[in-house]
């Protein structure tokens, strides 16, 4: 099921990026997680149970939908296909990873789950899986994010999770991860930290990638069945990088497939108010691994900015840093208002309201579309649905809706 390319290496490195920069107290838990994961990979019963839940509980496989109206309206002759992760239970791709890690936690006998959340999509997925697997659930969320993604806070609570507000700093995803780490350090024996993206210390970037690779695997099967060929472009938004790596990874060896990650350009790359880590950052060590980072001259981590809470993070998964450095993938950025326009555009042309995060991938696709040739195939990862963003969208559209 999972491709077997030998990265990361044993120490968790993707080329120069990755590793395990954590206080010693966490080392035993990370070792235990590596062992449990290796076991689970070869455990037929585990894989069958994961497949069953992905299918029956979460709604996989997700459709690959050709957005003909969207392409026509852009004057594009290419086929633009949307991978409909927005149709999954809880509303985003996050559930793929959460189900996998949730089953792993249960297998390790950890009855308590701690997690961070930004947009709240990961938090909702964790809360839902914990309810279903009967695990105790604590979600750390920045105060600013709790305000701007309020519907998701209510959903998490309804699902039985404790949502802990994180004050200080920017009140966003970075602080939520800090607090989740501190919680984990203090509770590591009975707790699994269910990290929501391909960031953090080894083995998280590998495990989350593998659980998200189901996206790209399905796309590959669907596209070959329908068109008998591989796609020309894969386009996905990049926050921590999990939905994008999930789409990209099964195609990494297929050199004809161009892979484009779209970061949050916020108010513009020159404004300093953005979350375009791969475009504007420098290498550093943060949240357990070496990767590109938004930071100041002294090595303090910058506050990111994005209209989309799920992309509002100054770090990025080490495998993306590797794909960027090796030139295998390309990373661009679109601004807040471009993403908002894309939300409106997809809603009106296709009757699909995308999440603000996913709208970044759509906004770049809109720019690319006119230059595409007839017959070219573009797959855009529609990583989540926009229900959670309605308040922000209404605010930003200033009375238009």
């Amino acid at each position, binding site marked *: 099921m999972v491709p077997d390319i030998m990265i990361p290496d044993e*120490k968790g490195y993707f080329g120069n990026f990755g*590793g*395990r*920069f*954590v*206080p*010693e*107290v966490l*080392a*035993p*838990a990370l070792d235990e997680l590596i062992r449990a994961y290796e076991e689970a990979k070869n455990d037929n019963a585990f894989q069958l149970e994961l497949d069953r839940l992905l299918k029956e509980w979460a709604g996989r496989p997700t459709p690959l939908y050709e957005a003909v109206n969207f392409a026509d309206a852009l004057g594009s002759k290419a086929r633009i296909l949307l991978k409909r992760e927005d149709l999954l239970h809880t509303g985003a791709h996050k559930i793929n990873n959460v189900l996998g890690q949730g089953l792993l936690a249960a297998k390790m006998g950890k009855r308590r789950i701690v997690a961070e959340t930004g947009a709240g999509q990961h938090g909702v997925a964790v809360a839902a899986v914990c309810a279903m697997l009967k695990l105790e659930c604590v979600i750390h969320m920045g105060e600013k994010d709790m305000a701007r993604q309020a519907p998701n806070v209510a959903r998490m609570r309804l699902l039985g999770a404790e949502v802990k507000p994180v004050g*200080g*700093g920017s009140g966003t995803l*970075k602080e939520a991860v*800090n607090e989740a*780490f*501190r919680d984990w*350090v*203090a*509770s*590591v*024996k009975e707790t699994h930290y269910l990290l929501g993206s391909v960031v953090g210390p080894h083995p998280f970037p590998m495990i989350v990638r593998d659980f998200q690779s189901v996206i790209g695997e399905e796309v590959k099967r669907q596209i070959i069945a329908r068109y008998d060929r591989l796609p020309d472009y894969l386009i996905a938004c990049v926050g921590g990088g999990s939905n994008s790596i999930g789409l990209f990874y099964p195609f990494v060896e297929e050199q004809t497939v161009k892979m484009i990650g779209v970061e949050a350009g916020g108010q513009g790359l020159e404004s300093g108010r953005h979350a375009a880590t791969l475009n504007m950052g*420098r290498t*550093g*060590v*943060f*949240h*357990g691994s070496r990767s590109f*980072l938004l*930071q100041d*001259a*002294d*090595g*303090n*981590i910058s506050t990111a900015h994005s209209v989309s809470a799920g992309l509002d993070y100054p770090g990025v998964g080490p495998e993306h840093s590797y794909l960027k450095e090796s030139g295998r993938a390309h990373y661009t950025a679109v601004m807040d208002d471009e993403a908002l326009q894309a939300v409106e555009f997809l809603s009106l042309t296709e009757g699909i309201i995308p999440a603000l995060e996913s709208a970044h991938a759509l906004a770049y696709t809109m720019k690319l579309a006119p230059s595409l040739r007839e017959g070219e195939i573009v797959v855009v990862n529609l990583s989540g649905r926009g229900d959670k963003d309605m308040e922000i969208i209404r605010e930003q559209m200033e009375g238009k809706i």
Partner: protein
Amino acid sequence: MNRLNSVFADKAGALFIAYLTVGYPSLEETVEAVLLLEKSGADIIELGIPFSDPLVDGITIQQAGTKALQNGVNINRCIEAVRLIREKSDIPLIFMGYYNPILQYGPEAFCANSFSAGADGLIIPDLPPEEAGLLEETALQHGLDLIYLIAPSTPDEKIKYVASRSRGFLYLVSVEGVTGVRENLPPGLQEFVERVKKYAVQPLCMGFGISTPEQAGQVARLVDGVIIGSNIIRHLSDENWRTSLPAYVHELKSFLRIQEP
């Protein structure tokens, strides 16, 4: 023998190691507080380099770090603080800082400048020995002791490995948790220390969550040094620290002395 080795060699009873964040409440007060701590009986000083995202610190040290960053403190200012302290004191000084600022400054320049200013050692809580190869070598070349941490959850094999690489002393984290004042010491400290003693030849110092003189006294029975941070910061947050801090250290030292054979 460097200052750190000497103070352990000459010690009678457990040493008192005081942590404070450089630049809290201000850079001038850090230098003044270190000298006052020494006069009051502190044996070693840990100087915290402030960082935007201190993952192993509880709220007290987090807030001190935020204030220090607002005061414009960076590695150069920390090294300057060491230089100012060294003009007046020979107390061993150890930097405690997260890895990224040191990495961005440049490990080579950091070790060279820290040592020439008068620093003796270095603790980086998010840099385990597996990732520290280069920095460890650089520190060694420049005469800085790189001190590693272990926790109660660390398995025997790993204790052996970390102990074989930690210079100056070995830092035993008393709790599974972040820094901060706690009401009670965790159970099982004696077993933890006994397990470590099977493998470690260097001095053992314990920190995290130790704050009252009574707690320090209990820990002092087990190890060579007791590290206290959050409670020092708490004193410094009060404008009367120039009287309250020495009183606290005196009481603390009386509890450490009781433990002498």
